[in-house]
């Protein structure tokens, strides 16, 4: 990105957006991800209304194979797998987005402070970041959820606590890159407060890589939620795909469908997010595209 380019970009943000969209739309894999994403979003919003069967309720013969009585069969208790998939989507999406939001808040705050102030503040915050990187993430999340007792809130909290470090490092790196750029120096010269330079000038300019990281972060959060629920640390009142697989774990020989379909759902969701994230990466950071 050179200075001239930067000026036109700040002058016409909608043009920049259009350009990014054109680049995104020309990427077949990214479009596939987007279509998948739209379908999954529709499932979360309209699914439970269209298919209101309670996923916790025993509705049919236990272990009935797919297509016999119900489209995707029932689990070892006789619960409808399709109902589980439809209603579990909400938990997955809710936790995925909320946990990512929480991750971004911690990561951006620490990254911004470290990158802006430098010196001992940066030193200290980066040591804290390194400390969290050494801890095995899933294990720490398990400990946190187990200690605070499993609920959607503790799961979101635990995922945030264990996954903010890449965001902090990325934000700091971006801040170090643009710290000495003209528009920042100019703001300083006209007497803008530190707070306004940090949040109103520098952070928006560091946004493109953060948007990509946030998108991919949703996928990571969903995988974390699935793993925690699989290990029996899910919210007992919220039906989730990971829980379905964990519950039918001891019956995989008898009911392969009960563990396969929820996994396919998780797989497609995370795949869609990865494809969108990769597409955004190419569209928002065109320079990286050349290296790739």
């Amino acid at each position, binding site marked *: 990105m050179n200075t001239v380019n930067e000026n036109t970009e700040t002058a016409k943000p909608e043009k920049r957006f259009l350009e990014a969209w054109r680049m995104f739309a020309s990427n077949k894999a990214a479009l596939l991800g987007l279509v998948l994403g739209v379908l999954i979003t529709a499932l979360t919003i309209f699914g439970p209304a269209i298919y209101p069967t309670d996923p916790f309720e025993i509705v049919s013969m236990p272990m009935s194979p797919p297509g016999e009585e119900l489209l995707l069969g029932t689990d070892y208790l006789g619960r409808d797998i399709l109902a589980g998939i439809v209603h579990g989507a909400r938990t997955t999406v809710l936790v995925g987005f909320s946990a990512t939001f929480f991750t971004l808040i911690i990561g951006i705050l620490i990254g911004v402070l470290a990158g802006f102030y430098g010196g001992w503040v940066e030193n200290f915050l980066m040591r804290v970041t390194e400390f969290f990187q050494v*801890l*095995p993430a899933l294990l720490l999340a398990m*400990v946190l959820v187990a200690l605070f007792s499993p609920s959607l809130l503790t799961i979101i909290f635990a995922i945030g606590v264990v996954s903010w470090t890449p965001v902090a490092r990325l934000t700091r790196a971006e801040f170090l890159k643009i710290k000495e750029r003209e528009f920042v120096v100019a703001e300083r010269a006209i007497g803008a407060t530190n707070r306004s330079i940090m949040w109103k000038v520098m952070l928006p300019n560091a946004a493109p890589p953060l948007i990509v990281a946030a998108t991919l972060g949703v996928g990571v959060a969903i995988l974390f939620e699935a793993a925690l629920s699989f290990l*029996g640390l899910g919210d007992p009142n919220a039906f989730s795909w990971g829980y379905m*697989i*964990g519950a039918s774990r001891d019956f*995989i020989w008898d009911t392969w469908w009960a563990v*396969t379909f929820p996994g396919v759902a*998780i797989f497609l969701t995370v*795949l869609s997010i990865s494809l969108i994230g990769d597409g955004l990466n190419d569209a928002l950071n065109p320079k990286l595209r050349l290296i790739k």
Partner: protein
Amino acid sequence: MGSCSATIGVFLKILFSIFRKAIYSLVLLLAVIVLNFLLLHIAPGDPVETLVAEMGGATPELIAQLRSDYGLDKSFPEQLLNYCLRMAQGDLGMSFTYDQPVIDIILGRLSATLILVLTALVLAVTTGTILGIMAAQRPKSVFSGLVSVISLAGYAAPVFWTGIMLLILFSYLIPLFPSFGMVEVGSSGGALDHFLDVLHHLVLPALTLASIYLAVYSRIARASMMDVLGSDYIRTARSKGLSERTVVYKHALKNAVLPVVTMAGLQFSQLIAGAVVVETVFSWPGMGQLAFESILRRDYTLLLGILFFSTLIVIVVNFLTDLSYRLLDPRIK
């Protein structure tokens, strides 16, 4: 003479940097101990309450006696200091469900986890590098596209599900591998039989754990190989008329592999965490399965002991990775 003292100077510098890194690792370890202590304080029920519940009630005098035995009547900083001292001596507390010192239980499970994690690591690094390099040589080919697809799929599939799918495929539909454990129940062969038995049990869990990292490493290897293949010294090697094979495997490989190794070192903590899930799926008798069991039994002393011990392993591995770098490449400060 001059060059000799310069060598000594470099050597001292390396020694000093190793010393600094060692101190840093110790500080990290201390921070982990403090975190553990804080988490233990949050945990519902202190050891005495648990003991009393186990005994089915006790007199107030006995409870007071137990509290002072466990040092729970002391002030917060004193308790923290005591805790650090005990941890330094390798005392991670008692597990009330196993009725054994936590450290003994963990050490009993350590080798199983290390076998699984190291096999998966080697598998992921070698296969990932090879796939990435082959893809980098023909970036527009079908093969390269296939590697990208595998890498995407390996990343998007939850590990435990990959494991279960492999179990259904290769243990049930095509019964090639055993479905749980590390050795056959009641087997009594020689050392070689035992080794083969463990190997047979290891295939599916190691493949499962490797699958996620395989995706990551093949991506990194592909990117870094393409980067290296575009550099000047490779152009020189090519213009000398060396065969493509020599250029790629003798000249480029060494530099292209470095980012993969760096990543593998950095991600070791994630590998340990991944082992928790994989061990649970395959009933592999390591620390991860122990963590799962300790949650079921609400044995928080044991659970936090596992968190501490696995972090200790990560710190040691990071230190060793760093050390080998410094010894191999004195340019790294």
